[in-house]
């Protein structure tokens, strides 16, 4: 019995050491790459801007907002809403006038083939361009087929980002989970 258990424990310890070592080695590069990639994405979301500065915000009053970056002609906002299987995190470019200039999904764990399509479905995401916090499923936005809850969550997160810039209340009942 003693001999049998040594090999699995040794395998776990070796794997843990390799992973901890890998994490330590890669962490510097990872942080640098995050900054480069974030800047590239933000330039695409808010055309015409090149430099972005993180902005302080009231997290209690803006529970859907994760971070805010200010540029010359607008903001890039990381906003979130609960989807079908967890939080959907978006990066939304919003001009100073309060119109959406770009949307991309940063993170989601929705059902593959249904809600997860929000990640790559360009026509769906393009519907939010030039909206001003008034995006609504069934009115000016078509939901993803078979993924109404995920679509509503994306809509809610986009509207929350616009709401942060304009100061408007975007918590419409029509964009609530399953509403």
């Amino acid at each position, binding site marked *: *019995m003693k001999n*049998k*258990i040594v*090999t*699995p*424990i040794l*395998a*776990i310890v*070796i*794997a*843990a050491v*390799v*992973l*901890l070592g*890998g*994490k330590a080695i*890669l962490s510097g*590069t*990872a942080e640098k*790459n*995050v900054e480069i*990639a*974030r800047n590239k*994405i933000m330039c695409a979301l808010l055309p015409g801007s090149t430099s972005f500065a993180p902005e302080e915000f009231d997290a209690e009053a803006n529970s859907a907002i994760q971070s805010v970056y200010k540029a010359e002609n607008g903001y890039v906002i990381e906003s979130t809403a609960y989807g079908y299987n967890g939080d959907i995190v978006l990066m939304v470019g919003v001009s100073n006038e309060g119109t959406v200039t770009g949307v991309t*999904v*940063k*993170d*989601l*764990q929705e*059902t593959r083939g249904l809600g997860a399509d929000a*990640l790559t479905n360009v026509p769906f995401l393009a519907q939010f361009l030039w909206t001003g916090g008034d995006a609504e499923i069934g009115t000016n936005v078509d939901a993803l087929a078979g993924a109404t809850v995920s679509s509503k969550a994306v809509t809610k997160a986009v509207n929350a980002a616009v709401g942060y810039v304009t100061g408007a209340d975007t918590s419409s009942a029509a964009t609530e989970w399953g509403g």
Partner: protein
Amino acid sequence: MKKSTMMVNTLLPVVLGVGLLVGMVWRTCMPFVVLPELDVIAMVGITLIALVLEYYMVGKVKRSWVLQILLAAVTFGGLGMAAGAPGVGMNTFLVGAIAFAILTFVFDSMVARLEVTTDKKCAVIPTAFVLYLACQCFMGMF
């Protein structure tokens, strides 16, 4: 004749470790890529890969259930935390243990029935795949 071995608990950290390492390198090179979390479905897939490899390496085995489930819990929770994988917390230990216990029991039962067939060596992979799909469908109900 069943062999008394813990091969699956040796293979589990290897398979999981390789998966987590690949994910870590991938996230470093492409920081905003969306990869699956170490959730129930991922644990099911990793456990099944380890079980299939164990079957091809040693055949049918006699298990020390309590010890093996504890080792599986430490593997999923410990390695997930060591890698800093997203979605990993203290509940990963418990979920990993439960997923391993159920999967191993069901897989062993199926393998015991496959033993009477002539093409048992080939049948193990489709069996594991169908079991993975069944778990995905089951999780989709929640």
